[in-house]
């Protein structure tokens, strides 16, 4: 006996690709925010990254920030600060 089985998959909404912003050409003199979202040892790692970054990118200023809210909660003040103050960001880690 043969069965014609229907496709059970939900329908993916159409998604338009959003381009990334342009990269910075050089980190010298730039401000890079290193942001921890607090899970899985991200605090330890991102602080380590912030300390090490000037060694790998001479002239950069690394600013460590811990995401204040739960990792799934919006932090508009932090995003505003980054958009205003940062030339680039490193965000991590975990979920």
């Amino acid at each position, binding site marked *: *006996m*043969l*069965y*014609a*089985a*229907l*496709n*059970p*998959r*939900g*329908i*993916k*909404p*159409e*998604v*338009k*690709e*959003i381009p*990334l*912003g*342009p*990269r*910075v050409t*050089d*980190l010298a003199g730039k401000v*890079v925010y290193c942001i921890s*979202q*607090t899970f*899985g*040892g*991200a*605090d*330890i*790692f*991102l602080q*380590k*990254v912030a300390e*090490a*970054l000037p060694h*790998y*990118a001479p002239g950069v200023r690394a600013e460590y920030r811990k*995401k*204040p*809210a*739960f*990792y*799934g*909660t919006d*932090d508009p003040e932090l*995003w505003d600060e*980054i*958009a205003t103050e940062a030339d*680039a*960001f*490193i*965000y*991590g*880690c*975990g*979920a």
Partner: protein
Amino acid sequence: MWGAHWSMLLEKRGVPGVYVVDEPFVADVQVTCEKEGMPKLRRVYVPHPAGDVTDEELPDIMPEMVRALTTPFTGDERDDNLKREKESRFLPMFREPEDGPPVEKTEEEGEGREAPSQIAITGTLEEVQYYFDENCWTDGLPIVPPTRERTDEMLRGTSHPPEEIVTKTMLPEDWIVTVEKVAIVGVMAGCKPSDMPVLLGIVEAFGQEIFASTVRSTTSFSFPIIVNGPIAKEIGMNSGINALGSGTGNKANATIGRFLRLALINLGGSKSGVSDMSSQGNPSKYSFAFAENEERSPWEPYHVSMGYRPDESVVTIMSGGWSHMGCFGNVSLDEIAKAMRSIELPNGALLIMDPMPARTLAEKGYKKQDVEEYIWAHATTTAGEFRADFFYPAFIEPVLKGSSMPGRERLWPSHYLDLGDDELVHMFPKGSIKVVVVGGETNPFTQAWRMSHPSTVSIEKWR
């Protein structure tokens, strides 16, 4: 995958960045990036957990970060990310074929409506099962092939048209779900047409932001379904002996519970190892549905406590399942509260109480709300131990500092931050302990489950 979400938000605001991804989440991040329209989000992969990365490992990681911030884009970056995903040792057990499963036609037929489903495969029972397994469309158990005839029969269980959209945000991937798709998955799970209003209510209840984190979580959440009101009896749900267990008398409980897992997989796009990152899993993820024993309970049923009419049929879904204790063989609320002190991340609990201890408590003058309040008041710990909870830094401390979690109000009071280590605190947020009466009165047992975020909807409209 919140980190990717916030990184994309910053990219959209014009700040170039790189997202640091722990190795197990390679595929999870890619799915999130594609869902949100930024599949080329720059990433650097690190061993897991990142907190254990040593200074000696940094020379391999740091230059990648600098390159990610400063190197112009290339056209094949998405391919690079997919290649990385394929090479990851954290692969799901089954992979979709290279050309992917058949893509459903998504052409809209009008506002709030979608086109009928297409046939995915025609074959023997074994061939259909193999195909569904290979495409990661099952929960690992045999399914009932969802033929057009069976689906149409299932659709007779609701007055709603098959093309009607039930939700546009079925988790985890925010997919669009029609009434027909619910019927198809209901067939797969072994449900009956009369179950349809409950199945539709489950999908409606699950399309809430409060489940967005728990459904993907590493913490092995399951989502119990509690059915209240007349429909529970109408469709043969069990609220008595072995209601949380197995057996022929539990067919409605078993299949409705199974429906939710199959719905997450098929209607919401959940995939183990990609968007379901449960580190260990737990068996209640297969199926976890029951009705409250309203007839034998001395108290008002759960849905009435939530403001619904007694004659209204209602479905409730909670998040939890990864911490469970009992059966407590007595009615000492002090003993239950004491045991519940060992629950981690105590943001809510569900006591599933047999009618026997419920009646004993009622005879002593306890209302249901008194029991909930008593457990809350006596489940205490020291502030020092509360702050030592594994989940405290990520989930509790931000709340104490004023941040709310998605879909929730403040849980614990902020003065917990300032208490001395030896001062006592109530572990659970006030109002977060819930009691339902379930069981067959063979012994006066109570189970305590770590459960939170109840999402309750009336299912009358889905009849």
